[in-house]
Structure formats: C-alpha cells, structure tokens
C-alpha cells in the first residue's frame, strides 16, 4: 500500500507530502520563489524555528475536513500541513506586508556594518532585506551595542549583529554534552553568552559559525582575511577520525583561507564538521579535492566563478551586447 500523502497547495501550486511535514518543508519540495525565507529554522536542529517570524504565511483553508482559514498568520516552519490545506505566501499582500515589517524590526538594532562584516555576501539577513526590506529605516534612535566577546580562541561573538535566532544555542545544546551556552537577559537586551564568558571548548563547537545566519559568530582564523566573493569554494574531503570530513574549502589563489561545512540551497550544512577540519587543516595537501561547489547563480559568490554562464535576459535581443559578452567570456576563459 502506498504511504498516505497529504495534498497541500502553496500559492496555487499543489504538492503531495508525508503527514507531519511543515508548510515550509512542503514549500521547499516545490522550490522557487514561493519558499518562505527562514532565519531561525534549521532542519538539522531539533526545536529550532518559530522565532524570527519571517516565514509567516497565511493559511486560507485549514484542511479538507475543516476548511476554515486560520485566524492569524502562522509560522510556516512550525505549522504542519493538513490534507487539503491551502497556503498563501507571496500571493497574499498581508503576508508580504507582515514580512516587510519583520525585516524592518530585525534591522532596527542591527548595525548594518556590512562593509566590514565577514558574513557579507553570504548573509541571509542581507538577502532578506534586499528582497523584502524598505530602502530607508524609520528608526532614528541609537542602536543597542555590546562589546565583542571571544568564545574560545577561534570564535568571536559580535552581539551587535545578532538577531537572536537561537540556532547556535541549539547547536551547543545538541552537539555538546553540557549546556554551557545560552541566552541571558530579556527582550531587546537579551544576548547570547556563555557563563561568565567561559570559553567554549568542544570538538564541534565551530559549527555555531556555520549556523549563524548573520555575522554575529565569526571564525577568527578567517576574520578580515578576505571578502567571500573573492574566494572560490571547492568541495573536498579527508579521512577525519572525528567527523565525516566532508567540507568546502574557500580558496584565494593557492591558499585555503577557510574551511566550512557543505551548505545546501537553504544555507544549511549537510554534515556538521569538527574543529580540527575547520580551524587546523588549511593546506591543500591535507584534502582530496572533488569539484567546485555549486553556488546559487543569484549569489554574489558566483561572480567570476567556474559555473556555466547564464546570460541575463536583457542581452537576448541585443546583438551588440551579445558580442560584447562573448568577448568578455573569452577573456575569462583565459584567466581561468
């Protein structure tokens, strides 16, 4: 017998999913623009999600049995689908408006120091505010500020940039033995911290850097070394006794500037990697190289990269632009 499936319609596109799937994951099965953005949800971390409110969607029909719409917008990452459910994401002006509000709220205390932030170029908050934010802030008060804290000798915490998504807290709770990393204080004074700034010392603690959607937790071995769009990511692996050893190496010329976990289309790592792989093995001879990492073509990181070239729509009709583009491509080939 075939497994029971629930049919859910998101922005008019139907998809059949297994019961217990969340709306967000159902949307990810469809893919494309109708996937709600998620700043705090992380499929590999139990209990994550529901906090940032960027993934709010409107449930216009509850289910086949109970077709009433849900009274409020719901967090799609924590709401499971029902059979016959109809969801509106980008087709609902209410959702778009609410999401714009959430993005504005997320940014009022964010320093917007992208020019000096290591995360710039691969920052989900940057993408989100580019897609959904207003061009001007209406907030004219001083932003909250914190001192930078070193969590151990390899990780730096810059609370100013934090959006309190709690992902790193879940990483620390679920990958390490003792709960030693959490949120202190309340409201907009809340901060990520360790007890009396204790250093986090665990083989897998480096993963808090990978899960951080913004530049609040950064790799001290990479800080200020380079902009991510000048580096070239290459998938590689090694025989690691602690973790899977499957990583992405970020090259600048012949140097490996940093090592991260391999990330999927939604910026989630495939496997958590250990600190030795991340911080201490930065020589090409340590690794077996596989192939250039596939990067979403809209990402700034793909600029001047190995991936096949997708000509922009504007040049399709224009012979002059096409010729100019051909010429440019030839040059790039030589450089490669």
């Amino acid at each position, binding site marked *: 017998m075939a497994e029971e499936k629930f049919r859910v319609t998101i922005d008019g596109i139907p998809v059949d999913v297994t019961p217990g799937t969340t709306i967000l994951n159902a949307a990810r099965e469809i893919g494309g623009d109708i996937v709600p953005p998620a700043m705090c949800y992380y499929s590999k971390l139990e209990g994550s999600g529901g906090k940032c409110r960027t993934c709010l969607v409107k449930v216009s029909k509850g289910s086949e049995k109970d077709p009433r719409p849900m009274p*409020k917008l719901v*967090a799609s990452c*924590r709401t499971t689908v029902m059979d016959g459910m109809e969801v509106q994401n980008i087709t609902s002006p209410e959702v778009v408006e*609410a999401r714009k*509000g959430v993005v504005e709220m997320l940014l009022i205390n964010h320093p917007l120091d992208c020019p000096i932030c290591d995360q710039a170029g691969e920052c989900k908050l940057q993408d989100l505010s580019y897609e959904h934010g207003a061009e001007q802030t209406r907030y004219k*008060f001083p932003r909250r500020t914190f001192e930078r804290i070193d969590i151990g000798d390899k990780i730096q915490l810059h609370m100013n940039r934090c959006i309190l998504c709690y992902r790193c807290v879940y990483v620390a709770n679920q990958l390490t033995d003792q709960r030693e990393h959490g949120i202190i204080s309340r409201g907009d004074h*809340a901060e990520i911290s360790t007890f009396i700034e204790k250093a986090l010392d665990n083989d897998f603690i480096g993963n808090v850097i990978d899960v951080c959607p913004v530049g609040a937790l950064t790799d001290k071995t990479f800080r200020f070394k380079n902009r991510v769009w000048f580096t070239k990511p290459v998938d590689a692996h090694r025989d690691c006794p602690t973790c899977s050893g499957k990583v992405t190496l970020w090259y600048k010329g012949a140097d490996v500037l940093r090592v991260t976990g391999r990330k999927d289309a939604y910026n989630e790592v495939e496997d958590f990697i250990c600190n030795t792989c991340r911080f201490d093995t930065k020589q090409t001879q340590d690794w077996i190289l596989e192939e250039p990492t596939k990067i979403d073509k809209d990402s700034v990181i793909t600029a001047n990269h190995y991936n096949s070239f997708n000509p922009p729509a504007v040049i399709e009709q224009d012979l002059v632009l096409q010729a100019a583009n051909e010429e440019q491509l030839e040059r790039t080939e030589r450089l490669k």
Partner: protein
Amino acid sequence: MARKLLLTHIDVPGIEGFEVYRQQGGYRAVEKAVKTMTPDDVVEEVKKSGLRGRGGAGFPTGMKWSFLAKPEGVARYLVCNADESEPGTFKDRYLMTKIPHALIEGMIVSSYALGANTSYIYVRGEMMPQIRILEKAIAEAKAAGFLGKNILGKGYDLEIYVQPGGGAYICGEETALLESLEGKRGNPRIKPPFPAVAGLYGCPTVVNNVESIAATVPIINDGGEEYAKIGIERSTGTKLISASGNLVKPGVYEIELGLPVEEFIYSDEYCGGIANGKRLKAVVAGGSSVPILPANLVFKTANGENRLMTYESLADGGFQTGTMMGSGGFIAYDEDQCIVRNTWNFTRFYHHESCGQCSPCREGTGWMEKVLHNIESGKGSMEEIDLLWDIQRKIEGNTICPLGDAAAWPVAAAIRHFRDEFEWHITHPEEAQKRNFGLAHYAEPRQPVV
C-alpha cells in the same frame, strides 16, 4: 447588597487560618466532591456553571478541563497561575493574602476533577509573603487530612507545591510558566501542542488562574446551575475587580457580572465616584493590555446601550469602540491625567517584560517606547503618530504569544481615541511639559482611524 461567593467571609478575623475557615464552612466542597462525586461529575458541574477563565482570555473553564488528554499511565498536572503581574491587576494577591484556604480548597477540588496527583501553584517571585501564607495553609490542610495520601479515606492522593517564579510578566503566559516551572528560561512555547496534550514535563496539563480555581468551591457547594443564575448570558457568576486610579475608594471588589459600569464607578457600595470631584476622562477596564476607553464610551456602548461589567458588553463594538474584560484590572483616569504619558508608561512595561524570543515583539516594543517617550517629552513629530500606528499593527498577531498583542492594543486604542491629545503634545511641546491636556474632544468613535 450584591451576592458574594469568594469574599463572603473576608472580614471574619482569623479567616486566613484553617480553624476559622473550617468553622465558616470551608472544605465542604472537598468533602462533597471526594465523598459523593466522581471526577467527571465535578467537571460536569463546572461546565454547567458557565465559569469563564478569570486570568484574562475568558475561556470557559469546564471546556478547558474537558480538552485534557487522558492517556493511560501518564501523569496529569494542574498548575495554578498565580504569576499575577498585569499592571492594574491585584485581585489574586488579595485573595491569597486574605483567604488562602479558598485557593487550596479549589486546588483540591480541581485536581480531583482532573485526576492530578501533583499540583503546583506558580507564584510570582515578588510575592514572598503570599508564598509563606500559602505554604502555611497547605501544611494546615495536610495536617487536617485534606491533602496528602488517601484524602478523607477515599483513596485519592494529592500533593500541592508552591513554586516561586522569578518575577517575570512573561511567565504568566501558560507555556512560559510551564517552561519556568521545569527550571528553564521562561520563553513561551510554540503551540500546538497545547498544554492540555503536552504541558508540564510533556504530560497533559491544565493551567488555571487563581480566581478560576477558587471559584470552583462555591460551584461545587451550591451546584453549577445555581452559580449560572448569577450574571448575564455567557458571563456567569461573580468576578473580582481590582479598582485603582482616581477613585474615591480604590480596592478589590467582588461584583456580580452584569453590573453597570456606571454603578461600579459611582455607587458608594463600590468605588464611590471619581476622587476630588473631578470628571472621568478614560477607563482601562481589564488591566493594562486591554484597549483604553474614553469617557463617552465607558457608560454607553456605541449603540447607546448601557455598558455592563460582562465579557460581552465590555467587548461590544470590537476594538473600534469596545474593550475587554481582561483580568479585571479596572483603572480610572480623571481629567488631569495624561494619556500620552500613560501609554508611554504601559509600553515601557511591555518593553521591559518582552522575553526577546520573537523579533516583532522584541524590537517593536522598544521602538514604540522610544517613539512615545519622544512625543511625551515634546520632541515628537506628526509622522511619528502614524509610525506608532504602523509599528503596533506589525506586532499584533505576528508573535508567538499574546504579549505582542498586549503591547500593541493599548497603543492602538490610545491613538484611536485620543489622537488629538497626541497631536497637541507635538504642536505644543513647551505647554505639554507644564500642564496636561485635560478632557479630550472625543472623536466620533465609529470613524476609521488613519
């Protein structure tokens, strides 16, 4: 004289002790329930009474109890929410201080109805004296055989524990309360699952307000139908109202639901009118989170009917011209009070108490506070009123728990009804520092705002 059910013996000397409480007919409900009724009978009686939750939302208590999941071999819990911290509400503290056995007796009856063998009273951390009073009352009840193993020889076991909180407003939200009770950070959980299915330690749990639990005692004593005779329509029974503000006699009053608001304010039996012969400007009817009402909508609804102290009548007109019963924190403002300053003060509270888990509430409450402070101190601009309206709209309904709504509603209502006062603060910044606006020129309430 109106009927009283909870505060009948409040003036009897020594009522806080077990002996006097027992002499006045206390613990009859426990005897009746445990000896003559099945747990389902008790739930049925409470359902018949039409009792609605007294903590703010007004959800029917009997129905809440019937939703409790009852899987085999899994413990069930009753948790009493005594984390009363809404500005303007102080009824539960009064009840626990003066007549603690009413709560303990209600806890025993309710726990029996739900089949809970362990129950908790989660008391707000600032209420240290009340915690001691409750612990003493529990010890007395235990010594008399109403608590502990094999209550009244009928084979029902119950232990009640008092747990002090850390004094956070957010821990009055039921799932944050359960988190805190489990020893974690008091962040509201994402629902579903609801506590009735997975609450304390993952077990089915009912969380009730102090007053709701205490109200089960007269319901069991006199029967649910008798209780339902008091009040109007779906607002049955009596309710404790904590009246404060510019009143001749502020304090905690037990009223029969259905009392006209006008009588509550002006009758000598209750508040005795506005202090110092001033005129009434506005009323917050149910604690700081409900919409504020201007005087022209306090006594009459927008349809010209008398406004009564019931869940329905107070909410008549929706948020456009009505308010909510809330937790019964009744605050009256006379003509000398400044609505802008009051709104700023409320928002300051919500900013301080936001748990910081979800973005709109964490960032939005602080933003609203800063904007309101700007306007209050004469540095505001007209656009900021619209900005405030927009911020509150983006918070409301988009958060995990109702704290976001509670922070948004007072701001929305203040702008809706007292926009001219906000504007005056902006156009007369110097004057606004020296005197208050006085009575508002109330806008036509049914006109849409912004």
